[in-house]
């Protein structure tokens, strides 16, 4: 038998628990940084997020509404390098650089709101279905099936069109479309995790179902949701830009899809800049989150094979 030293403990409970968690977090980060494509993804994300955060420092915010693109009616469709417009302007005098920088903010706002809404709804619905099972599961999953049977973009487009063109309606439309994926993932995870013996073991020591869900089931089934959420951070901006491009967003808002659409009529005339730059931004944003999400999956869920 080992003697346990009497007297005060060397560390406080909270401290040591924190240390272990921090160590695990550190290991996770190191594993992530070993993969060059993940690092590339992370670099894109950091650059774009930096742009969003420091937008007011890079370009003077427009008044009264900073998310509205400033119009320079004296300089329509000027090429990159023109005085006052380093990346040129669109056909209607919108500053491309301003649109890019503040568009990053718009995109961040869009993806964060939509992802948190959809994750919350999806995880709740999926958890109820998976945990309860039986008829509840059956009913919820049939509803999910209906949503899944309609192609994402078309469905979002239909909803946004019905609600009328505005940025808020785009958020709503995307939330309505994207939650079902999380419900599906969460339900599958829960059905798998709740069969584990540690769930029975928790029941055996007298835990309530509620507590078992938050302590044993949720932490062990959330990983794929985190990965999917990371990937969706990219996808949602892509779909959102598409909807704006079609014209379902407010006119003149600093958003990449809007910028592309303002520049598109000039492409045949050789005025490539107004569409190409925002297009690149959407591409980098989606690419960054996809690369990072894939890397995250490799680290968090080593059992999943990813095609290389």
């Amino acid at each position, binding site marked *: 038998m080992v003697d*346990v030293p009497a007297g005060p*403990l060397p560390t406080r*409970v909270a401290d040591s628990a924190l240390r272990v968690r921090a160590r695990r977090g550190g290991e996770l980060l190191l594993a992530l940084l070993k993969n060059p494509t993940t690092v590339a993804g992370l670099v894109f994300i950091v650059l774009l997020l930096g742009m969003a955060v420091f937008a007011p420092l890079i370009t003077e915010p427009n008044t009264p509404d900073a998310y509205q693109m400033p119009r320079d009616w004296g300089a329509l469709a000027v090429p990159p390098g023109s005085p006052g417009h380093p990346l040129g302007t669109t056909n209607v005098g919108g500053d491309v650089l301003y649109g890019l920088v503040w568009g990053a903010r718009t995109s961040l706002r869009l993806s964060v709101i939509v992802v948190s809404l959809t994750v919350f709804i999806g995880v709740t619905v999926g958890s109820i279905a998976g945990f309860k099972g039986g008829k509840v599961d059956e009913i919820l999953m049939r509803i999910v099936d209906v949503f899944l049977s309609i192609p994402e973009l078309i469905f979002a487009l239909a909803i946004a069109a019905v609600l009328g063109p505005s940025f808020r309606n785009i958020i709503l439309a995307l939330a309505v479309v994207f939650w079902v994926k999380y419900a599906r993932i969460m339900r599958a995870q829960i059905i798998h995790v709740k069969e584990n*013996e*540690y769930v029975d073991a928790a029941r055996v*020591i*007298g835990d*309530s179902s509620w507590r078992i869900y938050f*302590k044993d089931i949720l*932490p062990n089934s959330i990983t794929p949701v985190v990965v999917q959420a990371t990937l969706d951070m990219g996808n949602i901006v892509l779909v959102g830009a598409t909807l704006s491009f079609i014209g379902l967003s407010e006119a003149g808002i600093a958003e990449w899809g809007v910028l592309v659409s303002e520049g598109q009529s000039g492409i045949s005339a050789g005025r490539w800049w107004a569409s190409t730059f925002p297009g690149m931004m959407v591409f980098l944003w989606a690419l960054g989150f996809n690369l990072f999400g894939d890397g995250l999956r490799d680290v968090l869920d080593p059992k999943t094979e990813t095609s290389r």
Partner: protein
Amino acid sequence: MSLVGGIEPKAAPQARAAIASVRDLRVHFRSKVGVVHAVDGVSFDIGDGETLGLVGETGCGKSVTARSFLDLVPRPPGIKAGGAIMFRPHQACAACDGAGCAVCFDSGRAPESCHSCGGDGCERCGHTGQHTVDLMSISGSEMQSIRGNRIAMIFQDPGKALNPAMQIRDQVAEVFFQHRTADLLDDAGLFADGSEPGGSLLRRKAGLRTRRAEDVILSLPPFRSRRGRLMKAVETRIADALAETQIPNPRKVMDRYPHELSGGMRQRVMIAQALACDPDLLIADEPTTALDVTVQARILQLIRELQQRHKTSVLYISHDLSLVREVCDRVAVMYAGRIVEAAPTTSIFSDPHHPYTQGLLAAVPAASHERGRLVAIAGNVPELIDPPDACRFTGRCPFETSACLANEPQPAAVNGAHEVACFIHHPLPGADDAPSFDRRVR
């Protein structure tokens, strides 16, 4: 040859009523092809302080029987088809306040007198005078207060029975928070003077009922030191529980995650968690099957030692006869959802009465045997979908006759505590064609 050296099977104290009595337990499962009678009329007693082995092959219903004690059989597809599990929970012994004395046989625990008759004996307590609950019919919250507190369970694979995302400390702490809230506050010296700043919060904390926001409040200066005392009290209890299962360096092991421990260590943690609240009954569902042989021996020895120190009753589920022989005081053999034979360990191994038990013992390979063909019982386990009124062993039994196909044998005593359900030993009165060991049919 002894796998676990140095521990003699001991006689159970007979003065008290059985800790649990299973009566005509029936648990069925609904399936696409019909109702599976997984457990079909099982009755047995677990004596106070006794280790009862429940033996049988895969699918005979032994795990379902054990899981019924704690209402762990999923419903649906499970169906409670009938019967009762009368459990007699104990409380701290009044004579010695849990320290162990002659009155409580050194267990520190004593039966509660029956709530409805006060100890005179009535229908409710089965004329034992002891407080009795039927585990098959009590409410969810009553069951929750028994789980982990009065009845604990250890599982087959300790690798799967611990939450991979939680540190050992948090998993063991869970039991204390669930069932020992008052003791924890006591240990920490809280509420000694009657009141405490943040009192209701601390009470909730010790009973695992705080929310995230309340935890934040408790981490602020006026409550911080008190919370610290509470957490320290829990920590001491965890360390003691782990040390009891001979885990070296318990304060280091606490900070580990399950994957950082070996299989044997994990099983020790499981045992520590199970015995943390000094339960009356420990259900061990093949606790060593997933471990290799040397670790197996040590874990068995540990269970035996702890069982003797705490005088805990144990229901030991296994398919391994040699283990059961080492660990158990009494053995019940299950076949196809029924108990075919139950007897003290020495009696069942030296003098098995039921043809199935005989076949089972003959099939155990021994190290002293020549290499060659392994002995097996011919045939397969019968389908348990709507079984007919016949002995379940018909079709495989070497001695069966038409009498065995027409009726179902009931368990009855052959000598003293040795019970067997077989027409060879208890022929039906007036029935012709009674089976006999002299007449082999296959």
